[in-house]
C-alpha cells in the first residue's frame, strides 16, 4: 500500500443557516489507522460523521476514498464501497429478531439484498454466518429475541454486529459507548479490540478511556476546525487541548 490516505477530506465546510459548523476542515486517514475524533460539544463531530457517510453534502470541499472522489455518492453507495458506520442514537430494526437484523446486513453484503426468488430459510450459508457474527459479539443466546425487548447494552453490541457483518474496510463508530455503564464500556473496549483487527477505524467518542484504549492517533476538533492532531500522548500533553476542554482533564 502506498502512502496515499485511504480516506481523505479536503477543505470541508458546512453551515446550517447562519451557523458555520465545519470550516475548511481537512483530514487524512491512512489504511489500518485507528483514529480517534474528540472535541467538546458543538465541535462538529456529528456533522463530520454525517458528511463522511453521505447523510449530508458539504457546502465546499471534497471527500476521497481510496483515491476515488465520493463527495456526491449517496450513503448506500459509500457503504457498498466498504464504509460501515454505527450510530450514536441506536438505529436498529427493533421489531425484528437479532438474527434477522444481522441477516439483513449479510444478505446485502452477499449481493442477495433484493433477490426475489430464494426462500430466506434456504440461505444456509447466511444462517451459519449470522450465528458466527452473533457469537462474536456475544449475542448468540438471544439470536431469536426481538431487538426491542433486549437490554440497552445488548442493543449496543448488535449495533456493532451490524457493522461487522458487512466486513467493511473502514469502520466509523459514532459514540459506541454512549449510555453504557463502566463495566459495559470495559466489555465494549475488549470486544472492539478483538474484532476490529487490521481494519481502519474512525472513532468519535466522549469517553476518553475508550479513545485512549483504541485509537493510535487522535484528532481534536474545536468549532469546526482541527485544533491539533497527534498520538494519544502528544494530544494529552497539549496545553491547547486542556484549555479547550476547560477543566475537564483529558487523561
Amino acid at each position: 500500500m502506498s502512502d496515499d490516505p485511504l480516506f481523505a477530506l479536503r477543505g470541508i465546510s458546512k453551515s446550517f443557516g447562519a451557523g458555520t459548523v465545519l470550516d475548511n476542515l481537512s483530514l487524512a486517514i491512512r489504511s489500518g489507522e485507528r483514529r480517534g475524533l474528540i472535541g467538546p460539544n458543538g465541535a462538529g463531530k456529528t456533522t463530520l460523521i454525517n458528511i463522511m457517510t453521505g447523510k449530508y453534502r458539504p457546502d465546499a470541499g471534497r471527500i476521497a476514498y481510496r483515491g476515488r472522489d465520493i463527495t456526491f455518492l449517496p450513503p448506500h453507495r459509500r457503504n457498498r464501497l466498504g464504509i460501515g458506520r454505527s450510530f450514536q442514537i441506536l438505529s436498529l430494526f427493533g421489531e425484528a429478531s437479532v438474527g434477522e437484523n444481522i441477516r439483513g446486513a449479510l444478505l446485502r453484503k452477499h449481493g442477495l439484498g433484493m433477490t426475489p426468488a430464494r426462500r430466506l430459510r434456504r440461505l444456509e450459508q447466511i444462517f451459519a454466518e449470522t450465528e458466527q457474527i452473533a457469537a462474536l459479539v456475544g449475542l448468540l443466546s438471544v439470536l431469536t429475541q426481538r431487538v426491542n425487548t433486549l437490554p440497552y447494552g445488548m442493543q449496543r453490541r448488535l449495533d456493532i454486529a451490524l457493522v461487522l457483518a458487512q466486513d467493511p474496510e473502514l469502520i466509523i463508530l459514532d459514540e459506541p459507548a454512549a449510555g453504557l455503564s463502566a463495566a459495559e464500556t470495559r466489555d465494549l473496549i475488549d470486544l472492539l479490540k478483538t474484532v476490529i483487527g487490521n481494519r481502519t477505524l474512525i472513532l468519535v467518542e466522549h469517553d476518553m478511556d475508550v479513545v485512549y484504549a483504541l485509537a493510535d492517533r487522535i484528532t481534536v476538533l474545536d468549532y469546526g476546525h482541527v485544533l491539533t492532531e497527534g498520538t494519544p500522548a502528544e494530544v494529552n500533553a497539549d496545553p491547547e487541548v486542556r484549555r479547550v476542554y476547560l477543566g475537564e482533564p483529558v487523561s
Partner: protein
Amino acid sequence: MTIPGKLGPVLSALDAERGRGRVAETLATIVLLAVVAGAPWIVSKAALNDLGQAILFGLFAISFNIVFKYSGLLSFGHAAFFGLAAYGAALLLQAFPALPVPVLILIAASGAGLLGLLLGHVCVRRAGAYFSMTTLAIGAFFYTIAFKWHAVTGGTDGLGSFMPASLMLLPGWRLVNPSITQTYELSVAFLIPVALAAWFLLERTPFGNAIQLVRQNEQRAVFLGYDAHRVKLANYGLAAFIAGIAGALWAIANGFVSTDSIDLTLSTTVIIMTFIGGSQWFWGPLLGSTIYIFGSDRLSAVTQHWQLWMGLVFILLVLVFPRGVAGLPGMLFARLIGRRDV
C-alpha cells in the same frame, strides 16, 4: 420439524417465537382461499355475482395494502393503476377480440406496473403526507383524462360492448357467452396464484426482507447498503402491476368500463375496504372488500342513503376494531390472557 446441524437453534427458536401465530395465519389463509375457490358450489347466483366483484376489489385492495403495510405509504390515488388496466383491457379487447385472456391481462397489468415505476420515481421519494398528496394528484389526473378524453375512453358513457361473444382463454380453449360462474372462476384462477405469489415474495424472500427492513428503519437500511428508493420503487411497481391485474379482470368480468374504475371514490373505497378487513394481515383487505360489497349491497336494498350508513359503520369499525376484522382474533386473544401489547 427438526433441522439438523448449525441451523437448528436459529430456525427452531424462530418457529417457537412466531409458531403459534404462523399456524393460525396459515390455517385462516387456507380456509379463506378454500371458501373463495369453492364459492360457486356454496352460494347462490346472486351472491356469487357480489362475491365476484368482492374478490376483484379484494385483489385491488391487497395491492393497495402492499404499499401501505410493507412500505408504510398511504396512497390516495391507487385507482389510477386499476383504471388504466381496465381501460387498457377494454380497448385491447375491442381491437383484438381474439387475444388470449392471459396475454391480454399481462399486457394491461404490465402497462399499469410500468406506470407505477414511472410515477413511483417521483412520489416514492417522499413519505407521509407528501406521498399521499402526490398520489392524490396522480389519481385526479388520470380520472380527468378518462373523463375528458371522450374519443378514447367514452367519457362518462364509458366503454361498453367490448365483450366478444367468445373469450379466448388459451389457444383452442374458448368461453362462449361466459356465465357468472365462469367469469368468477376466471377471476379466482388469477386472484389466488397472483396474490399467493405476492405474499411469498414479500414474506419469504430476500426481496420482501429488504422492503420490510426499509420500512422499519430506512436510515439503517441505507447504511447497510440498501438503496431505499429502489426498494420502495420496486414494491410500488409490484403493487401497481397487481392493481392492473385486478383492473383488467374487472373489465373482462363486467364487459363494461366507466370512470367508476378510475375515479377518486374508488381510491378511497379501497382504503375503507383495507381498514375494515385489517391491514396487518396480508389477506385482510380481501376480507374487507367482501364485507364492504355485501354490506353496501344489503344496505342499498334497504335505504337510498346507504353510503351514509356505510360511513357510520366504517367509523364505528375503526373505533372499535382498529386492526380491522382480521385483527379481531388477536385482540380477543390478547384480552383473554390480559396482554395489551400484542
